[in-house]
């Protein structure tokens, strides 16, 4: 039922069209049932000269009409063509409509998913598995689409067929109807049971294929190890084993399928044979006419193959339900709120940040930051040092409200951070992440991404400041080089520099760099630092690092440990007081003396 509600939610304005498609199925079916009746009438009455017996009490045509038809037999042929035209025309329209509806439906779901996923809180993103989510957004959507476009329609068609054919057959001969439908339920149940049973084998085959692919991928990506250990033959054996297993599983499945198709074919043929054999007897004894027998033969052919398919469709329907549940799981997760203060356009943030007794823990309850008290003045540059896991990144994640804190306060320009509109807030912050993400677009677009519009000059300036300009100039297409296309990839350091340029171009009042130079070589790092030094005072800057080389930029240094601030102050002050910081710097002296001596 819940899945039904899900379907309806996305079906606004589509229901009528879908209903029309269903109606067209009925019309097409009715027309297609007329052909055998026309042939029957032609053979029995027009050609065979028998008195016509019309189903459903339709008035019998008079003898004069039959004589006329016999003289103009082309009319019967034309009628067949006309009826077929209607029937096939309806089928075409129906497929068209149901496909369009299903595609529109899929389009809406995809858009919704994309939008929703983007607006989900970052906490969600940090805990889900990307592969799984992508799978849901693509193959699960496709399963639902197929269900709407094909399976449900097929099911409807089969049901209508049975509902429409039975009365026609019964009206012609109840007895022959009985013989014509003896095997039909067996075919249906057989197909249904078979496809349920065989699912396990399909799964086993899929798994064998997955294993083969992994084996192959590993051997390719680990080729250096393979070569260095001279394990080529071993790899070949391993791959052959996996390929052989996949082959054998596939063969096993094909054999099972071979028996199924053959036997269910035979069952269907048996049904057709039954109609013919009993029909002959009944025709000879005069219970039914030749035309009736032929009509029955046609009808059973129209009926039995779709019924067989229905067994399969029904087992597939379970999959659509599962897919819907998986999609709902994403869409039912609440998005992050974007309520809050948005100051007037004229007012620019100063960028004064104050942490007051701030504590923060992730959903799991694992405490990350405890009792942080820190006031960062507008335009000040703060370097936060600390070991991995000390809580440095968590601290920066709080400022753009990627996570919300639970206790204590963060004040931005004296206003509680949680009161700001998230989007407004984020636009005031230029942030460089440790593992920057670049979009599969041109370098120019990647740098200018945070701005609604931005001049080429600004991008070049930012790129120069990030010491990326010369690298870009070396590319064949310069700033228009598309990242990820034709094997163009940037090295870790280049990606970081691109992200730095992207943040600098914003000229935002707050700049956060989260270990943003970790992959940049020392020489380049020095140049970037020189450039950053020139910008000092323009923005409140928080530099997170575990590299000492960055401290020269700092107005103040904060040492974080286990989520607590253990030392804070200017470089000159800190080297005077006993503590980690002093110890580190003392060692340098020792070292220099050692080298000299």
């Amino acid at each position, binding site marked *: 039922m819940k899945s039904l509600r899900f379907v309806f939610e996305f079906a606004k304005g589509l229901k009528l069209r879908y209903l029309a498609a269903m109606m067209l199925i009925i019309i097409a079916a009715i027309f297609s049932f007329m052909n055998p009746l026309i042939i029957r009438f032609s053979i029995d009455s027009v050609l065979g000269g028998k008195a016509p017996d019309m189903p459903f009490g339709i008035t019998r045509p008079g003898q004069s009409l039959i004589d006329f038809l016999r003289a103009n*037999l082309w009319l019967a042929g034309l009628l067949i063509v006309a009826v077929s035209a209607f029937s096939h025309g309806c089928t075409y329209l129906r497929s068209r409509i149901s496909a369009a509806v299903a595609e529109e439906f899929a389009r809406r779901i995809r858009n919704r998913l994309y939008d929703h996923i983007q607006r989900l809180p970052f906490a969600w993103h940090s805990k889900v598995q990307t592969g799984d989510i992508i799978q849901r957004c693509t193959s699960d959507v496709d399963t639902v689409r197929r269900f709407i476009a094909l399976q449900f329609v097929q099911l409807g068609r089969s049901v209508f067929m049975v509902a429409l054919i039975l009365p026609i057959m019964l009206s012609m001969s109840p007895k022959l109807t009985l013989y014509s439908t003896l095997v039909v339920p067996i075919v249906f149940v057989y197909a249904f049971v078979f496809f349920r049973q065989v699912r396990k084998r399909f799964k086993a085959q899929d798994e064998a294929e997955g294993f083969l692919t992994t084996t192959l991928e590993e051997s390719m990506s680990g080729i250096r190890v393979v070569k260095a*250990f001279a394990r*080529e033959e071993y790899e070949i054996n391993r791959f052959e084993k996996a390929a052989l297993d996949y082959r054998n599983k596939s063969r096993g499945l094909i054999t099972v399928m071979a028996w199924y198709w053959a036997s269910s074919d035979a069952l269907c043929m048996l049904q057709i044979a039954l109609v013919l054999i009993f029909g002959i007897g009944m025709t000879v004894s005069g219970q039914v006419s030749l035309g009736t027998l032929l009509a029955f033969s046609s009808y059973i052919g129209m009926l039995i193959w779709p019924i067989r398919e229905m067994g399969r469709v029904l087992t597939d329907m379970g999959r659509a339900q599962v897919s819907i549940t998986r999609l709902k799981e994403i869409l039912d997760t609440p998005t992050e709120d974007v309520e809050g203060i948005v100051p007037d356009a004229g007012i620019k943030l100063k960028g004064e940040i104050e942490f007051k007794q701030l504590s923060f823990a992730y959903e799991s309850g694992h405490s990350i930051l405890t009792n942080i008290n820190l006031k960062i003045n507008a335009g000040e540059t703060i370097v936060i040092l600390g070991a991995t896991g000390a809580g440095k990144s968590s601290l920066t994640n709080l400022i753009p409200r990627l996570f919300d804190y639970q206790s204590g306060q963060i004040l931005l320009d004296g206003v509680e951070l949680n009161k700001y509109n998230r989007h407004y807030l984020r636009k005031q912050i230029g942030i460089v992440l440790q593992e920057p993400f670049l979009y599969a677009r041109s370098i120019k677009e990647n740098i200018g991404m945070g701005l609604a519009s931005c001049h080429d000059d600004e991008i070049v300036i930012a790129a120069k400041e990030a010491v990326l300009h010369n690298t870009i100039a070396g590319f064949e297409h310069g700033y228009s080089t598309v990242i990820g296309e034709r094997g163009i990839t940037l090295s870790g350091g280049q990606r970081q520099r691109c992200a730095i340029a992207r943040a600098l171009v914003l000229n935002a009042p707050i700049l956060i760099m989260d270990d943003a130079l970790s992959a940049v070589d020392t020489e380049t790092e020095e140049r970037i630092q020189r450039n950053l030094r020139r910008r000092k005072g323009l923005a409140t800057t928080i530099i997170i690092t575990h590299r000492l080389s960055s401290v020269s930029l700092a107005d103040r240094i904060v040492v974080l440990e286990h989520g607590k601030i253990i030392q804070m102050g200017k470089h000159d002050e800190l080297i005077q007081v006993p503590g980690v910081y002093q110890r580190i710097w003392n060692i340098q002296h020792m070292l220099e003396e050692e080298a000299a001596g």
Partner: protein
Amino acid sequence: MEQQYQEQEFTRNIDPKLWLGLLKQALPYKYLMMAVAALMTFMAVLDSMLPLFTKYAIDNMIIPKNTDGIVVFSLLYIAVTFIGFITVAAFIHLTGKVETGMNYDLRRKCFAKLQAMHLAYYDRTPTGWIVARLNSDISRLGDIVAWGVVDIAWSFAYIVIVSAIVLVLSWKLAFILILLLPIIAYISIRFQKKLLKLYRLVRRLNSKITHGFGEGIHGAKTTKTLVREDANLSEFSELNYEMYSSSVKAAVASALFMPMILMVSSIGVGLVLWLGGLATLKQSISFGALVAFISYTMQLFEPISNVARLFAEMQNGQAAAERVFSLLELEPEIISSVPWDETWARRSMKGEIELDNISFAYKDGQPVFSDFTLYIAAGESIAVVGETGTGKTTLVNLICRFYEPQLGVIRIDGMDIKEIPMKWIHSQLGYVQQVPHLFQGSIMENIRYGRLDATDEEVMEAARLVNAEPFILNLPDGYYYQVGESGNLLSTGQKQLLAFARVVLANPRLLILDEATASIDTETESLVQEAMDKVLQNRTGIVIAHRLSTIRRVDRILMMHLGKIVESGSHKELMHQKGKYYRLYMNQFMQETADAEFAKEA
């Protein structure tokens, strides 16, 4: 991403040479394929006989009102059904055998070829591309060849037999059918081609959509911080709309196909009913014949559209065939001129290495080394330091003969590297990568990779030696713990330790270590350090070093800069020079001290 490589446009006509080449690959299955063709011909006979049963029933039983022989008739009919059952089961089974067998053979051949390829090939060929060739391309070829035989044999036989039957029944009426054939064929071919094109576009867009979702999820943090949600959505919607409209286009075209074909057949049925009806009135053909004609007309489209589909698929599969052949025809650029034999197997490497005036470039005009010379004595341990991109890894690539220098000679134990079997070099060599690579399977299997005939006890000993055992025993199944795809269920440090154990087990004469820069937790790091010490003993060692602790342990340090050794000597000597090494060391030392101090505090 793979899709991008897969979906190149190939709209040329069918190239018979290519398909003959492919048929050659199917040679081991020629008898099976002949059997399938025979079965399909037989099947066509059965299929074309069924309307004749109806004809017989009408003309010999129903019209004369005579049920004599109905028992025989029924038994015969059921017998035909039964034979049909056996035939269908047999042909599907055999075709499946050909298909899967061919796929298996092709995969095996391609894989063996790939294993022989030199490393440069892998550097310029993305793994995804190779995987797509061995998976989908080969599957498609097996499918086309195996089921192509089915389609062609059945369709051809069916058309011939039915033509013969209708000609015998009434050559005049047969004209209707013969007239319809080309029309159906024309429509089928046109449609199949168009459909393939349309669906190819849909597939390409679909891979873009997948990529779009991937970007949306991977880039979530960046998107949020840049407040790109709306801009991203509107870009995605555009793509999504494109997907929608091309899918609808494809669906509409395919929705038209069957009704069109069936329409043409029903024109045929109308004509047969009219002209055939007239003929029955004139008694020139029987009622039964008329009915048989009608059923033949209704079924005529099947063989034709089968063949049309096959041709369309062949056209589409041509690109796949070309790509698979391009794999099979690969020639490795680096091969051993000396064959491997038992004498080599017994020979142990001393580990003396000499690079003599080496010039090397990955790409023309961008030399990494020019006139590079280096001598490493047997048993010496060397640390290579320097910024990224100065040729440290290239040095390793050349010594391992993963790449070949354009100029100059590399000698191991005084022999030109080209005159030593590659297998010998690699069997004497141990190599630990910066990013350790493991294979799916158990820990035991992964360590044993170093020496395949090692006993369990030897494997454990190696693990113990590198301090890996404690963590291994803490895992659920100990040594039989499954490490997952590429070892992803383990941490980087743990993977590193296993890579060491693997190399210890191999007991190589020459060890090359590309030290990990990735930060691993301090506890594991000290374990790794200790393991490295043990591993470096009693053999020639070349370490691309990042950590001071490693640097200080070696006999000689080479400071590299832009493809040249700028400083060389012991740690002490280099420190006194106060050059590049001194600066690098100071920097690094401060960093490491800081890291250690912070960690100590924590």
